[in-house]
């Protein structure tokens, strides 16, 4: 990193829309008028073909024969290809091998692509793809995490992180609890399904329009499949209709298959997955099986913990190594575990290969320690909030189980502030009183924190590039390696550029992400989009600014310190020039007005062998307080109020950050409540559409929803204008809803019992918790026998 950015983007007379101010999404008008183009909206060439794939109907089997004659003969079908038609690599695993582009001899999940069809319409391609006759020799599949654990059947080796001597701490602790829990997976349900459009180029390469978070990887994999140098492939991503991690690696297979069909037919090919195919064929959030063994003192202060997290990875490694790592890194959430061991397993099952999803394993890891906090509270008869506060990292108790020291302690104050603004204590009292009177409806409340590590845990991904051109009329063109999926990255980075030059935001135009403008980019993931690309863009701006300063110094005989940029002007000594005018002068003097920029995150490292290091540049923090009502006869529930206070450092765009927080919270809540992935005993996904897979709808949002940004909290690290990443952390604020549900149910046993509640906490599971609680309290199973209530 060459130059540190100034600490604040704002100068007294500021240009419009620069970093730190709210600005609308750059596509806002196009969004609301239906003019924003997604892949399926790109005008179609007359000879366009549509792709579909034939799917395996077995979870684990050897293919004995595949008769595709009916597929080939179906009206409209132009080409059918199998793995034998692949000129280059047949394995397109993103990090480790294991993902065949089309199946070879063995299939490893129901829905796995066997062959691909190109036809004159999408409907014909899909109808034809169903006509294959495939003979299988069935093999014995492994379908659950527990079965995989029992067989030690893993996609990648297990490993542990150790701090001190947890076994001794546990043995000596005054109190010790053990528990296990299942944490469900999650379908991304980006509203725009996976899609790409691939066109042949005149040099036998291809141009790929894709809805992908990782264009450079798409480019590389397509090149490998076609056996071409990477420079023959160009990839463009204008925008995605949602990504959430589901388009980090999962978009590449579509591009590879389409490219193969382009190679075979010489015609452009579009591959857009119908919703059901998308849900069946693309990976989801990993479901986890977690256990804890914890020891604590009479106040509930942790003295030791032995935690196991096991992710169901599906049939291939994909990104699972890093995802389970991140679950391990977050098995402490915001709490000092003291003597600790955290072990992570990457279980192999014959199901679709699970993948990145907002939080990347972190949320699943956190669930086990949040469960522990509630359990400790019930055990010692304390309010769960007090137990949480007591266990927070703080000076002296600040080293994580993986060796990184927590340096910025934001949470204690943040929680205090939220506790006050949400009236937590008063509402707790009111709720306890209400529950005593109400026979059927029980209320619950919980305030839970989030501490989330920011950086890719794979060190090499923490780099970014940008390209900035200043044109002679003063307008600015910006391009960077980050992709836009709705998170507002384009506008935020444009604001950074506007702030760097101190010009109005309208002067800055961001164009589609393209591999031929900025090469070798990292995925837009790990919440890193604006941290990385903002810094790279700033770097490019600083280079151009330096040239402009040099030019001013030479031309006007001033000191470099006499040249400043503010409010659409360049001040040179006592003179002021309009931005465009000054740029014009520089152009005439043959000054280069274009530059690339680059950024690599400093400090971070992680020694995986030792399980120790400093994997994160910093932590993002937040907390949420949610109140729910639960119907103890049906298990149905509703969130009546949520208050959130979140730390985004010095926000680049407060409105966009609030949007990320609200959306993340609702998505996290959905993950833990109504979003249930159901598989048959044969390993077939049964919830293949929104009719059966229920993401939150409008009235699932809290009736009363209050979100605020933590004021005056610049990032201590030198991030772009001292902001903090905001993409993933808020998802875990949803944990407050789950904990509040448990709280409501626990009221039925006078808060003396911590009801187990696996996730997703569907009404059925909540009713299960109700039944368990009644049993504990010795109540019969009807509502008339309401819990005998003493004060908690």
């Amino acid at each position: 990193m060459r130059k540190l950015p100034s600490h604040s983007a704002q100068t007294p007379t500021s240009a419009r829309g620069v970093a730190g101010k709210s600005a609308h999404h750059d596509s806002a008008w196009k969004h609301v008028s239906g003019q924003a183009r997604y892949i399926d909206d790109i005008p179609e060439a007359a000879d366009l073909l549509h792709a579909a794939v034939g799917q395996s109907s077995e979870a684990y089997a050897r293919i004995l024969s595949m008769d595709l004659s009916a597929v080939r003969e179906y009206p409209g079908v132009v080409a059918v290809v199998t793995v034998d038609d692949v000129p280059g690599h047949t394995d397109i695993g993103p990090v480790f091998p294991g993902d065949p582009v089309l199946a070879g001899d063995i299939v490893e999940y129901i829905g796995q692509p066997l062959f691909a069809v190109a036809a004159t319409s999408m409907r014909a391609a899909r109808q034809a793809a169903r006509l294959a006759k495939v003979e299988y020799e069935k093999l014995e599949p492994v379908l659950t995490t527990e079965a995989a654990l029992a067989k030690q059947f893993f996609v990648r080796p297990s490993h542990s992180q150790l701090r001190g001597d947890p076994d001794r701490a546990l043995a000596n602790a005054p109190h010790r609890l053990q528990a296990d829990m299942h944490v469900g997976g999650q379908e991304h349900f980006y509203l725009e399904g996976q899609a790409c459009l691939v066109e042949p180029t005149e040099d036998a390469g291809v141009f790929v329009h894709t809805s992908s978070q990782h264009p450079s990887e798409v480019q590389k994999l397509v090149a490998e499949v076609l056996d071409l140098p990477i420079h023959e492939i160009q990839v463009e991503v204008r925008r995605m209709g949602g990504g959430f991690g589901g388009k980090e690696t999962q978009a590449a297979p579509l591009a590879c298959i389409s490219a193969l069909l382009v190679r075979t037919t010489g015609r452009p090919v579009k591959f857009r997955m119908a919703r059901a195919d998308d849900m069946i064929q693309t990976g989801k959030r990993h479901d986890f099986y977690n256990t804890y063994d914890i020891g604590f003192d009479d106040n509930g202060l942790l003295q030791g913990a032995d935690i196991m997290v096991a992710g169901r990875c599906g049939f291939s490694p994909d990104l699972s190594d890093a995802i389970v790592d991140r679950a391990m890194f977050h098995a402490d959430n915001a709490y000092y575990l003291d003597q600790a061991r955290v072990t992570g397993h990457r279980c192999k099952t014959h199901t679709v290969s699970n993948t990145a999803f907002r939080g990347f394993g972190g949320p699943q890891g956190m669930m086990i320690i949040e469960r522990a906090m509630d359990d400790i509270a019930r055990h010692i008869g304390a309010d769960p909030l007090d137990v949480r506060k007591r266990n927070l990292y703080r000076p002296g108790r600040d080293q994580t189980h993986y060796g990184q020291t927590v340096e910025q302690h934001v949470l204690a104050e943040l929680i205090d502030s939220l506790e006050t603004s949400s009236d937590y204590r008063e509402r707790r009292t009111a709720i306890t009183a209400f529950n005593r009177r109400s026979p059927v409806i029980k209320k619950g409340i919980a305030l839970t924190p989030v501490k989330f590590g920011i950086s890719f845990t794979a060190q090499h991904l923490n780099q970014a590039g940008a390209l900035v051109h200043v044109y002679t009329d003063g307008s600015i063109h910006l391009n960077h390696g980050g992709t836009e999926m709705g998170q507002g990255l384009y506008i935020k980075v444009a604001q950074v550029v506007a702030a760097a030059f101190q010009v109005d935001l309208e002067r800055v135009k961001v164009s589609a992400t393209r591999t031929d403008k900025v090469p070798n980019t990292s995925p837009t993931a790990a919440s890193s989009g604006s941290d990385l690309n903002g810094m790279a863009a700033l770097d490019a701006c600083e280079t151009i600014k330096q040239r402009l300063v040099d030019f001013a110094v030479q031309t006007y005989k001033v000191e470099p310190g006499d040249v400043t940029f503010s409010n659409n002007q360049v001040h040179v000594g006592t003179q002021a020039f309009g931005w465009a005018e000054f740029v014009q002068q520089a152009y005439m003097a043959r000054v280069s007005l274009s530059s690339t920029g680059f950024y690599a995150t400093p400090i971070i490292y992680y020694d995986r062998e030792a399980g120790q290091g400093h994997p994160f540049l910093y932590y993002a923090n937040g907390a949420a307080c949610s109140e729910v009502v639960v119907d103890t006869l049906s298990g149905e529930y509703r969130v009546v109020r949520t208050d959130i206070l979140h730390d985004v450092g010095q926000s680049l765009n407060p409105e966009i950050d609030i949007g990320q927080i609200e959306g993340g919270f609702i998505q996290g809540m959905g993950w833990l409540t109504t979003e249930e992935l159901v598989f048959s005993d044969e390993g077939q996904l049964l919830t293949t559409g929104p009719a059966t897979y229920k993401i939150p709808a409008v009235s699932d949002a809290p009736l009363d929803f209050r979100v605020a940004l933590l004021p005056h909290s610049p990032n201590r690290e030198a991030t772009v204008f001292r902001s903090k990443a905001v993409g993933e952390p808020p998802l875990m604020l949803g944990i407050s809803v789950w904990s509040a549900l448990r709280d409501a149910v626990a009221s039925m046993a006078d808060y003396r019992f911590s009801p187990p509640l696996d996730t997703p906490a569907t009404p059925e599971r909540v009713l299960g918790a109700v039944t368990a609680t009644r049993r504990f309290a010795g109540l019969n199973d009807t509502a008339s026998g309401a819990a005998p209530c003493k004060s908690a």
Partner: protein
Amino acid sequence: MIEFFLNGEHQTLANADPNLSILEWLRTKMRLTGTKEGCASGDCGACTVSIGSPDQTRPERLRYDSINSCIGLVGSLHGCHLVTVDALKQEPVHPVQKAMIDCHGAQCGFCTPGIIMSLFTLHTARHSDALLAQQPVPDHQLLEALAGNLCRCTGYRPIIAAGRKACVETWSPAADQPQPLSGPDWLQAPDMIAALTRMATQRSGLEEVATHRRYDTPLTVAELRSLRADHPNARLIAGGTDLALEITQQLKDLEHLIAVDQVAELKTTEIRSDALYLGAGVTYRQMQALLPQYWPHFAGMLERLGSLQIRNKGTLGGNIGNASPIGDMPPALIALGAELELDSTEGVRRLPLESFFLDYKKTDIKPGEFIRGVTIPLPHANDQLLLYKISKRLDDDISTLLGAFWLRFDDADRTTLSDCRIAFGGMAAIPRRAQATEKALIGQSWDAHSIAAAVAALASDFQPMSDVRGSADYRNTVAGNLLTRALLETTRSHTDPALPLTVNDYA
């Protein structure tokens, strides 16, 4: 041939595949790509469009309703004004668009066109009434308008805020140079209304020349009867909210469709002596305005049935005709003792609704027959109907189970139950009565003791299945608990609103 208007322009269509959805037609034939596909199953709302049709209550005016274009077939457009987001590109922007921008209501933007059209339709409805136009939109109505639109990015708060803001703002046309689609006037253009009124009296249809696939639209029961008799293998289509899924999800190509939605006689709603008669073509939206007057519990239940888009299209006849074990109307109507009316060239046949359902998706309908309507006995003074819908998500979700309790008490004090009919959906292969349970209750005092006996009897009535919506255990437990809820609701001296019995009370 069918005739309709698209964004103010007259359109005709004759040689077209009847399996073509409105969405596919818009996107692939008209290349109007503003309207998005998120699921093609009616669940996400990305494809929402607004449909104008002659307003039955206000002559010479069109009313506008939101529907899912992904499961609306092109044939159903005859006589309608189809409005899509593509019409809304003029300056000054529509208040709904402005508010969505101001409130940051779009992130990835993919759900946005659908949200815009749901809010546009709400805005249009409120501004067709000068009084409502100035008042803040009730939250309840706003949420209802949005419940069929999924957004994965925003968490909805800004969208709700945008809806509130926009509804009190007027859509003004461009001041200087008049543009065809600017301001609201084109939605009520007199020549378009005249043309649509003419179309309503004309029989329409489609036939794809290459495949001979057909879409017929009879206008009278007589025409429907004879078409049904001549083509016993043709499929009837009403709102299409169920049937269209065979086309979009199972990829079936249906050869011949006979639409019942233009048959005026099937839309009858009237009181016939001491019963309410509902034609098969009555939509949920119409039932929402009617049924709660007699049985208040229909209000809460219908609100949770599908989404507004579905309720604008879905019909009573379709809900009975598809014979789903988890359809919401059949258990309610069985509990009410409704009688079904079937019609054909052989004449009219009447039977208790409960005996119409034979087995999973199998009914007693004979070739050539169609459902004409149902007759529902009106309530007596001491009658009560309780409807409890249970689903994983509160909005727009198919029931895991639905309990319908028709209770007749001896007197207003509700001490003794003199008669009852209890029916469940989701507990068996068909919607069915719980006879043993009823027996345990009839003639007994209405108290916890009888309920306990009834819960025990319930076990002999049903052996439900486990599926994606819930396990057999859950269904059994909740079915019993709903009896408890019924008791609590009907007997509590405590109709204490501070102590609600369901989470719906917090809506």
